């Protein structure tokens, strides 16, 4: 026990002596949490809107005015020809183009029906879909207004059936993205820091040659490993603490569930990551290789975590892969405990999977560690 204590002390000293690393370990992640949480939004705002009004009637002007008044659309431009509009679209200056046809108003009054041309830049398919919803909403409300204004007695007989859906957004009524993203990004940062630090650490000793020196000392391997990894576990927990405080203070993210539960889970979770770090160290000869492998897995973990894109939508085989993604579990638990107030029994099955993962990962790491030396 005393030996482990000394190693831990030595490791801590080494970390804190390296003045270049300290800001990277503590300041960089905090800065990213504060800044990047604002970037992660799927909301579609500031849509660059343009129109061609071929009718120049009072209705066409009124419809365009509705778009102008909407908070989603801005930079209103009118083009005199389709050619000019499409070249602006090609340049990326326009996202959505509305074309009001000739005889727009006349058709509305006489035929009670008219088309409206809408062209969207759909490279970002999701954004284009949302834009389409906005446009439909504006046109629908304009239709309602028309009906009231133009309704003839004989039209009154034709009342269509209507099914209304009332959306109700639980746990985050205002659909605030930061409430969701801040805990998620915190998970990413804790994972990255602990994985990169632990993954590089032992392979570094290998590369410089100091690992052999340690191997000839009376220190047991398990003592050495625990001593090596413990400081990173502390750093991970510390980062979580700072992150949670900032989440509360700056972003006002709710904490409905038990803090103890969250810490309990995180303490197991970090063990999974440290096991991975050790495993990577064992299978590489240089820090460069370790770094590339750590990067490879982290990118996969991040993009397949369910944080940015939904997991249910992935093909079956990909969903099977996500079962091995620790970040997925942590993001899920954060969301459940902090935002929904889920309790111990709710998260039990996820926590048990994480625990099993930690045991297997560290077992593999220890086993392979003995093998290589």
């Amino acid at each position, binding site marked *: 026990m005393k030996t482990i204590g000394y190693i831990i002390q030595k490791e801590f000293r080494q970390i804190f002596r390296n003045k270049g690393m300290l800001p990277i370990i503590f300041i960089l992640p905090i800065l990213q949490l504060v800044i990047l949480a604002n970037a992660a939004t799927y909301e579609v705002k500031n849509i660059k809107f343009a129109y061609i009004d071929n009718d120049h009637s009072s209705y066409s002007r009124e419809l365009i005015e509705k778009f102008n008044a909407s908070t989603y659309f801005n930079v209103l431009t009118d083009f005199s020809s389709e050619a000019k509009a499409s070249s602006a679209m090609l340049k990326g200056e326009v996202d959505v183009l509305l074309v009001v046809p000739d005889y727009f108003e006349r058709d509305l009054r006489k035929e009670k029906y008219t088309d409206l041309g809408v062209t969207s830049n759909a490279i970002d398919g999701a954004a284009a879909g949302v834009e389409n919803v906005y446009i439909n909403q504006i046109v629908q409300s304009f239709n309602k207004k028309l*009906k009231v204004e133009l309704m003839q007695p004989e039209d009154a007989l034709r009342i269509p059936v209507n099914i209304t*859906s009332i959306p109700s*957004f639980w746990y985050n009524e205002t659909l605030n993205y930061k409430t969701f993203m801040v805990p998620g990004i915190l998970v990413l940062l804790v994972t990255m820091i602990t994985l990169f630090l632990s993954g590089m650490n032992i392979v570094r000793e290998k590369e410089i040659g100091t690992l052999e020196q340690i191997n000839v000392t009376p220190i047991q391997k398990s003592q050495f490993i625990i001593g090596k990894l413990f400081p990173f576990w502390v750093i991970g927990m510390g980062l979580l603490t700072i992150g949670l405080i900032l989440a509360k203070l700056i972003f006002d993210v709710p904490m409905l569930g038990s803090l103890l539960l969250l810490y309990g889970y995180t303490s197991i979770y970090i063990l999974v990551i440290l096991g991975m770090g050790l495993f990577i160290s064992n299978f*590489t000869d240089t820090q460069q290789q370790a770094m590339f492998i750590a990067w490879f897995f982290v990118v996969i973990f991040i993009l397949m975590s369910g944080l940015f*894109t939904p997991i249910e939508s992935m093909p079956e085989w990909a969903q099977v892969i996500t079962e091995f993604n620790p970040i997925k579990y942590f993001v899920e638990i954060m969301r459940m405990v902090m935002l929904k107030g889920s309790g111990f029994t709710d998260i039990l099955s996820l926590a048990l999977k994480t625990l099993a993962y930690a045991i297997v990962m560290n077992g593999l790491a220890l086993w392979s560690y003995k093998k290589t030396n």
Partner: protein
Amino acid sequence: MKRFIGFIKKEFYHIFRDKRSLFILFGMPIAQILLFGFAITNEINNVEIAILDHSKDATTGEIINKISSSKYFSINQFIEREADIEAAFKKGEIKAVLNFEKDFSKNLIKEKQATIQVITDATDPNTANTISNYINSILQNYRQGQNKDIKIAYQIVPQTRMIYNQELKSVFMFVPGVMTIILMLVSAMMTSISITREKELGTMEILLVSPLKPFQVIIGKVVPYIFLSVINAAVIVILSIFIFKMPVQGSLFLLGLESVLFIITSLTLGILISTISATQQTAMMISLMGLMLPVILLSGFIFPISSMPGALQIISHIIPAKWFIIILKGIMLKGVGISLIWKETLILLVMTLFFIGLSIKKYKIRLE
């Protein structure tokens, strides 16, 4: 010159001798692009939902059928009481509950109006919103079916045309993004660590006292990596075209040139990182921790830049990846030529020169 070529040759041998690293360098990006190209989509599919049907009549049955037969939703459970909704959400079993009002059919016939409450788990606001929209459009379809005989008066009907990506495939959004992340991070990491490695092992000083000039040493170190990254880029483009049916509307040649430019930008950024860090560990932490999340989040890869707060939009200008993504989408999906992307190209060029200039300055200080 001969010495210089000899040095480059040595660097090439050095890299190609390390089979393991080579395998990692080429294998990883291929695995990643395949994985992400197939797996990542921000559409929704098979979302688990629950039904709370207070009415249980023919109409609600019909609507439930419609919803469960769409590929977007699958019904996980039927809930009997309002009080049970919360527990299901807390366990994370379902993402939404459809709550049909009492006497649904009756209301629809008598009042011509009935109501469904769509309760979503909005801890993930994007999914919640999308679910809500999808349910709405299914209901709208159903309504239209019911109203077939009635011609609704006074309608403006938008005829929507989606250009550059008619089928709204999200893979067209993700492939350029993934290609950018891979090229940027792999390139920056390679150079940042390869030079600090020499520093850490003490061999850099030997190189610097050799008759080669410092900039020759650096160029010699970078050239093999340009070569490696270009092969990587080519492999990714080929996979994108043949496996993901990514169109290249514009010139393939231009795409190649722009990729080389972006690779050089990233490599020089790596060199800059290596000049400011003393150990491999610092270099790696700067290039991984410092670049990964900003590149993913601020480049427009996943989240639209135009929706970000003003200050972040300004910060996004200094992310080289943002400009390369615009270039890639322009050439691949819109088919634009250099006349429409010269500005982005120029920005990358200026960034590259800036990184080189700053690195040279830092190196000089070190040598004095």
